């Protein structure tokens, strides 16, 4: 595979989180019974007209600003004409030659820590189609037009990615961003965030791109990776066996892990784009753009940079903790409770215990059974020496299961750390007295036996002895007497 390089560009469709549709007042909520969220405009009844949803425009502008793109002062809605039962008007309203968002870029960080800039050619507004339903109907197809007219932002990248992993990293980056901006719920199972991948291959070192195939409707990060890998291999094999890649639309079959061409009729379409005469060109003035700009939240890079600078976190930790707005908010609430000097401790716990508990129970951070203030309270008990880090994990588990505060768990289970030097010294004396042979060996030079004594003492205190004090007193006792 060394001789070949894959070139990838993605067209991401992000469903905008507006309450109503892009050209009608019907609701956009997912999962309603078929055709209950389709009004006369969505059904394309004779005489109806589209009216643009200003909220969808605001969201598109928000995205454009977040990727540093130029917002077009004038953009145009065009009709893409084709017949299909789930396309009631016989055309889709989209933006063609004059999109609302111009050229921008995003920085992606790869697994090896290297970063790469992925250019974004454009982003434009368009309406989604309905759905054709084939299951459970004998000799018939059903049409559900609830989704018809749902606003989409189509985000078109440059062919800047050179591996399936890069493509996934870019898609994840966009996914994070649209959720940060609160313009898309990012739900991939429901199809709120999906993409088409343009894939071509070329001999490594050559400038000219190969002929590309477009893989349609990839709705998970894993499918994007697998579909691209498969397509990469397919194209190489095709070329090496003397064939040629043809420009076509392909579908990824996740069950068979292969791509295959869509019907050829589809390719023969001439969409006859022309400006939609029912909608005037969209004019966006500076004041509107400024009014959107002030609503921009702190973006992932900005948050990570702040975590690194203000809380002295490593770049890696800062990146993980800013990966989503929810994680960042949770982490900051823990820090607020435990104090900024303990940010590293907070980071370790959020990325460690909390994260594994969430994974284990398949929960999102919003559903965490230990809230950030409660976690902060627990960490406070480590900081003030009430419990050790080890005991804290036990307390955390109890908090998670029972929804109690750290102090209540500590009190109920008697887990308070023994910090009374006299009490610890007494246990040390007892343990040494009970193990004379080991004492002799230690004093003869077998240093490893220090850990044996420490372990015995911990066990005797039920793990509650303050580890630092224990070490200090034990050392003094063993070496001194």
């Amino acid at each position, binding site marked *: 595979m060394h001789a070949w390089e894959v070139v990838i560009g993605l067209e991401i469709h992000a469903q905008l989180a507006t309450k109503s549709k892009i050209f009608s007042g019907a609701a956009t909520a997912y999962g309603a019974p078929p055709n209950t969220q389709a009004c006369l405009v969505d059904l394309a009844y004779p*005489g*109806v*007209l589209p009216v643009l949803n200003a909220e969808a425009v605001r969201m598109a502008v928000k995205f454009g600003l977040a990727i540093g793109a130029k917002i077009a002062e004038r953009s145009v809605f065009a009709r893409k*004409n084709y017949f299909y039962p789930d396309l009631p008007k016989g055309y889709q309203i989209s933006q063609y030659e004059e999109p609302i968002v111009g050229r921008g870029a995003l920085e992606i960080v790869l697994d090896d820590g290297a970063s790469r800039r992925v250019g974004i050619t454009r982003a434009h507004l368009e309406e989604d189609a309905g759905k054709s339903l084939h299951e459970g109907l004998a000799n018939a197809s059903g*049409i559900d037009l609830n989704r018809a007219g749902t606003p989409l932002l189509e985000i078109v990248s440059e062919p800047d990615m050179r591996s399936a992993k890069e493509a996934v990293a870019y898609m994840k980056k966009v996914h994070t961003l649209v959720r940060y901006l609160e313009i898309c719920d990012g739900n991939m199972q429901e199809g709120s965030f999906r993409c088409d991948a343009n894939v071509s291959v070329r001999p490594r070192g050559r400038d000219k791109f190969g002929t590309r195939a477009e893989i349609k409707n990839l709705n998970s990060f894993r499918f994007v990776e697998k579909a691209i890998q498969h397509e990469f291999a397919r194209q190489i094999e095709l070329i090496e066996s003397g064939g040629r890649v043809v420009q076509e639309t392909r579908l990824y079959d996740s069950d068979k892990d292969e791509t295959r061409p869509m019907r050829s009729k589809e390719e023969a379409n001439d969409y*006859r784009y*022309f400006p939609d005469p*029912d909608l005037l060109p969209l004019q966006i003035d500076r004041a509107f753009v400024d009014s959107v700009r002030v609503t921009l939240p702190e973006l992932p890079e900005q948050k990570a940079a702040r975590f690194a600078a203000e809380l002295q976190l490593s770049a890696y930790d800062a990146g993980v903790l800013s990966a989503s707005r929810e994680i960042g908010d949770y982490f900051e609430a823990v820090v607020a409770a435990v104090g900024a000097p303990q940010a590293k401790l907070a980071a370790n716990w959020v990325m460690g215990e909390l994260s594994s508990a969430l994974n284990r129970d398949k929960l999102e951070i919003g559903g965490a059974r230990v809230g950030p203030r409660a976690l902060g309270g627990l960490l406070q008990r480590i900081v003030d020496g009430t419990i050790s880090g080890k005991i804290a994990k036990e307390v955390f588990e109890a908090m998670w299961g029972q929804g109690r505060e750290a102090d209540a768990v500590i009190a109920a289970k008697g887990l308070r750390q023994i910090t009374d030097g006299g009490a610890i010294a007494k246990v040390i004396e007892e343990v040494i007295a009970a193990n004379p042979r080991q004492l002799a060996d230690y004093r003869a030079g077998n240093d490893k036996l220090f850990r044996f004594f420490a372990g015995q003492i911990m066990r005797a205190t039920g793990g509650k002895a303050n580890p630092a004090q224990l070490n200090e007193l034990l050392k003094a006792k063993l070496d001194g007497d």
Partner: protein
Amino acid sequence: MLHNRSIGELAAILDRREASSVELTRHFLARIEALNPALNAMISVTGAQALLEAAVADRRRGAGETGPLLGIPLIHKDIFCTDGVRTSCGSRMLDNFVAPYDATVVARLKAAGAVMLGKANMDEFAMGSSNETSFYGPVRNPWDLARVPGGSSGGSAAAVAARLAPFATATDTGGSIRQPAALTGVTGVKPTYGRVSRYGMIAFASSLDQAGIIARSAADAATVLQAMAGFDPRDSTSVDTPVPDYGSALGAPLKGLRIGLLKEFSDGLEPRNAALIAAALEVFRSLGAATLEASLPSLPLSVPTYYVVAPAECSSNLSRFDGVRFGYRCENPRDLLDLYKRSRGEGFGAEVKRRIMTGTYVLSAGYFDAYYLQAQKARQLITDEFRAAFGRVDLLLGPTTPTPAFAIGAKIDDPVTMYLNDIYTIGANLAGLPALSMPGGFIDELPMGVQLIGPHFAEGRLLNAAHQYQLATDWHDRVARGYC
């Protein structure tokens, strides 16, 4: 007779309780019953509903309400959606379509208390200049039943000319109000594009379509326009600019008004038509207006430009008629493609298919630049020339049509000759300008129209000029024999 009264006189009769709206409605319904079979101006007559609406209007008036259209009967062109009433658009495709909502125009006139008598015949999907393309058969001209009334609002024009209603709604995409108004001897007003909402008006060519009025006089049209006009949040192309009081504009003297005669209109005009235009100019001069020459060098491009733009838009607008959700569906479709092909093939008539094919062609890859883009450039050129002309004149005047009404069947097999009938009216649509046609004399005992075109939103000026002309002439009061 009630049917020869103006809208203002009818409202006064209702106010004085000399007649009720129910009586008025019965009178016009009786005329429709007696006279329409020969004219075929109506697709649907909604008598029972009309009498209910009239009774409501009478109650409103009885409760102290008044209004210039309260209780006045009208006919809607069958292109406007009417809640619970078949809205066919003159097509087999929508023969079974009962609209589930009212067009904004219908809703506004309903709110004003106007009483709908029924729905007027029209060329199929408003595509035609003779009303011969209707699925419901041709409409006949009251002045000569062997002749066409013009189109596409032929039913509306014939109905008003035959005094089947005081007024009718109509639409104008390339002359569809003005041309039939001219050929039937009535007054037809096409407002500025965006002045009247298109919501609920079945689209032919969205950037050209405009709702308007066919009435007996400019004064009546002003009353109706007052109720129809205004911004509609459901139509993005409707314009949010205040609606002036058209009635109060009707009193202004014409002294100092500059009226331009378009060179491109007068060149090659049939001598008798030219004489009518000269006479109309003379009337305006006698009223104190100044007349001068004007020229729009690109105007001859308007017909070819129109026959690219309008079909392009119609080819897309009519895609929704696919047999899936409403309207005509073929019997026993084999598969999806068969459903599409036969539903559309059987549901649409020849002229509609011709325009869909033309429009599909001009938008196709490889032809788009040569046709659609060129047409857009020509359209811009024509618009710019109109704007420049209105820097020197206040109104433009010319003929509405090249000839009077022609015989049914004379041009239907020759689309290009038919299309040339719109040669004087299309320019105003391309530029979005308000225009009207008013009766201006006769050729071979058939009525002819004089057209006035104004700058954007100058409906008041146009209506006043026509009104002053109608005070000085009586062409608009002539009624075809048998319809007095």
